[in-house]
């Protein structure tokens, strides 16, 4: 393993951490902070002044606000240049789906600034989009449920019978969110909500009865999987996110990820979400182009994938064995305290410095 990256300044996005659906940023930062020998600086980048990772010094040495992805690349590169001038960023790890297209378009400019990123490229990002999965899976030799793209709710009435899928169905937003619906009424309601929130088309798939399994991995850009950690959720939030989970060894899931990474020549982190049907068959549900929020489990299981990503960026070719089964995590929520001045500084200047000890707050 290379040692160069252990002294880097690393910027990590996705510092939002609402308990029901946390961003992956703090977990990625924690992986780096706890990586053996790491003595570099970690910068948390967020889009909202209430993103707690911006202030949590156990994870990040400083926090900076970024413009929302909708502001465009010019605003993003301008802001990154300001932060870079102050911090000399060596590497950047984007952790939110919506940020990926912008960072991909800026990849060469970031490289020219000396900021290393490990990104899949626009074509590969598009090839793993929800509505592209059937074509990708056909090429890769992987099972995935069929999918219908709908631009109106009318055909929902007859879709279940016309396709032979029956009820329930799964209605999905183009970028995010999925709802299990059991009748045309529920389907229409879900369609309207998802269309309003995420736009068209809305995607519909047959429901796979079984349990979800997930794999976090790191593609080397040459068709290989540099490392993988598989996990089964043991407790869920209201949004279906993992509140507790355990590492598993599922060879079929590992093979599925290997095939997908090979078919895509995937470069960078990814999460493979799959369903193991009650008949034992494994179905790909989604590929997320980033580390998942549970990625700290990779460090706990001895396969620190964010550290391996930095290792790769420093020119090494890490190859980690799959993580062992039986390492559990249980998530929890906690509060942090900060001075009003620090919050004001974030609101006005988009930057947060060091934390304020609770004792100091109590004394005032």
């Amino acid at each position, binding site marked *: 393993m290379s040692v160069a990256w252990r002294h880097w300044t690393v910027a990590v996005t996705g510092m939002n951490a609402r308990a029901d659906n946390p961003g992956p940023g703090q977990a990625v930062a924690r992986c780096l902070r706890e990586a053996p020998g790491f003595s570099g600086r970690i910068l948390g980048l967020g889009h909202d002044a209430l993103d707690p990772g911006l202030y949590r010094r156990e994870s990040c040495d400083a926090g900076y606000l970024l413009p929302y992805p909708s502001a465009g690349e010019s605003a993003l590169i301008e802001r990154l240049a300001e932060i870079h001038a102050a911090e000399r960023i060596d590497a950047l790890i984007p952790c939110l789906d919506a940020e990926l297209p912008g960072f991909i378009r800026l990849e060469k400019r970031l490289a020219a600034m000396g900021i290393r990123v490990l990104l899949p490229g626009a074509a590969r990002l598009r090839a793993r989009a929800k509505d592209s999965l059937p074509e990708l899976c056909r090429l890769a030799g992987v099972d995935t449920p069929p999918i219908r793209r709908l631009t109106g709710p009318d055909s929902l009435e007859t879709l279940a019978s016309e396709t032979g899928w029956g009820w329930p169905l799964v209605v999905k937003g183009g970028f995010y969110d999925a709802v299990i619906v059991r009748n045309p009424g529920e389907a229409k309601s879900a369609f309207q909500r998802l269309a309003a929130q995420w736009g068209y088309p809305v995607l519909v798939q047959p429901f796979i009865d079984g349990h979800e*399994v997930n794999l976090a991995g790191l593609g080397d850009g040459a068709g290989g999987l540099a490392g993988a950690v598989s996990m089964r959720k043991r407790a869920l939030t209201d949004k279906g996110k993992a509140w507790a*989970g*355990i590492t*598993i*060894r*599922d060879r079929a899931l590992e093979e599925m990820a290997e095939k997908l990474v090979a078919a895509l020549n995937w470069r960078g982190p990814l999460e493979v979400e799959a369903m193991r049907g*009650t008949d*034992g068959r494994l179905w790909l549900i989604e590929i997320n182009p980033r580390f998942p929020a549970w990625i700290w489990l990779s460090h706990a299981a001895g396969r620190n994938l964010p550290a391996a990503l930095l290792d790769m960026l420093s020119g090494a070719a890490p190859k980690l064995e799959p993580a062992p*089964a039986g390492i559990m995590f249980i998530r929890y929520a906690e509060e942090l305290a900060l001075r009003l001045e620090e919050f004001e500084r974030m609101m006005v200047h988009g930057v947060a410095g060091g934390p304020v000890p609770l004792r100091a707050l109590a004394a005032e």
Partner: protein
Amino acid sequence: MSAEDALAALGGAERLAQLALSDTGFVFDPRSGLSFSANDTGLAALRLLRRGESLEAAADILSRDFEVEPREARAGLDIFITQLRRRLS
């Protein structure tokens, strides 16, 4: 489905050999991530089946070791296989 068929559908002795068994009765399936507890009889049955004993032979051994009628042991074993299939599939 007969217990033999259920055991075969489960993956037989090979699948059961993947399970991590503790003397406390704690059983962990590394493929599914699920865990459950087995009593002394269940643990003994699992150990017999994963070393490849047939259901008949396993029931005979359980009958002897736990001092129950062979028919009772076999009936218990059949129920246990059904439960295992539900937990491990």
